[in-house]
């Protein structure tokens, strides 16, 4: 399968950079899989898991992301996320803190649109938690 360049960047560091065969991205309108030759495209993210398959069947890697956005361009796929961690580094405390933040976002929301978004995020997080910590 053709490979393309993928970068996962968080404010604190460059989390991943390299050639990949495919990346599954949790876009705000639903998950999508980015492959080589994808048309230019930009979307915001919801909390979820990024699953990437490295070039040449070297196995899969999963990353936990909170808000951010993905940008597919000629240079490949770039994801900027507020929080981006390898799944192995995500623990109970992380979820507790993120869920608490999501709850305050719901109460702080300035209008109904934002509140709906915040509630969606909270539910997404709760779902992720059950997925990763059964």
């Amino acid at each position: 399968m053709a490979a393309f360049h993928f970068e996962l960047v968080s404010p604190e560091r460059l989390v991943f950079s390299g050639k990949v065969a495919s990346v599954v991205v949790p876009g705000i309108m639903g998950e999508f899989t980015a492959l080589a030759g994808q048309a230019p495209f930009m979307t915001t993210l919801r909390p979820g898991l990024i699953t990437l398959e490295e070039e040449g069947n070297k196995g899969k890697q999963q990353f936990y992301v909170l808000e951010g956005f993905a940008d597919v361009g000629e240079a490949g796929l770039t994801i900027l996320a507020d929080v981006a961690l390898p799944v192995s580094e995500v623990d109970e405390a992380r979820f507790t803190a993120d869920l608490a933040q999501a709850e305050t976002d719901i109460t702080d929301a300035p209008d109904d649109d934002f509140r709906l978004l915040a509630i969606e995020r909270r539910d997404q997080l709760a779902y992720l938690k059950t997925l990763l910590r059964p």
Partner: protein
Amino acid sequence: MPSLKDLRNRIASVKATQKITKAMQMVAAAKLRRAQLAAEAARPYAERMDQVLASLANIVGGGQDAPKLLVGNGRDQVHLLVVCTAERGLCGAFNSSIARLARDTANSLLAEGKDVKILCVGKKGHDLLKRQFGEKIIELIDLRSVKTIGFVNADVIGRKILNLFKDGEFDVCTIFFSKFRTVLHQIPTAQQLIPLTVAKDETAPAAPPSLYDYEPSEEQILATLLPRNISIQILRALLENAASEQGARMSAMDSASRNAGEMIKKQTMQYNRSRQAMITKELIEIISGAEAL
């Protein structure tokens, strides 16, 4: 004329001081390396963010319903100055140069008849500004307990600023920090956060924007990116500041150690001289006493 014992004590105390400054210099050097790495690691994110925002802002433009964070709320009366300084002193002119820049800006704004509000990040800036602008300082954010600055810390400040903006507490927001150039060179910088200043068409995408798909719409993406950008810019400022602080402290402590070395040299010379003078005096007394017999 100080006695020999006084001189000895003085030399000992300067030596002790020199040891402290030397240790501080070495600690600052080690911290500087880490702070520099952190500042560099944050760069790709901020750069990408700038590019994306610039291209989005060019597409959405400055229409009527453009987000307030991008074009401002149409007023220019109340200015919020976010002054980022260190939590600790002993780092040369680092804190005072940032505070001076902020003070000059505040004074010129006041002279124009504008209102000024100050948000202090870091205790030292607060100490320096509170005498003149005591009633204008709305809050002091203490990062003393924070070991390594992360996105979380910047996000807290960013949310605070956004809430103030939403409540109409200010119209224009500027952040003051020190840009890290080299160990010897830090540049106090003022950067406007709200409304956003974007580089126009500088990094415009080569492909016509219509080829790009946006999900959700451009406006919505921009609306979610703008608040995040505030936090990112604050994070960048804090990280640059952290590196600058350590750099400034390193060079300040280096010159302090050198000064202490010079002082030790001078005082040792004086000590030796007066010891020699005393020996000579005693010899003369003995000789003249023997001659008198």
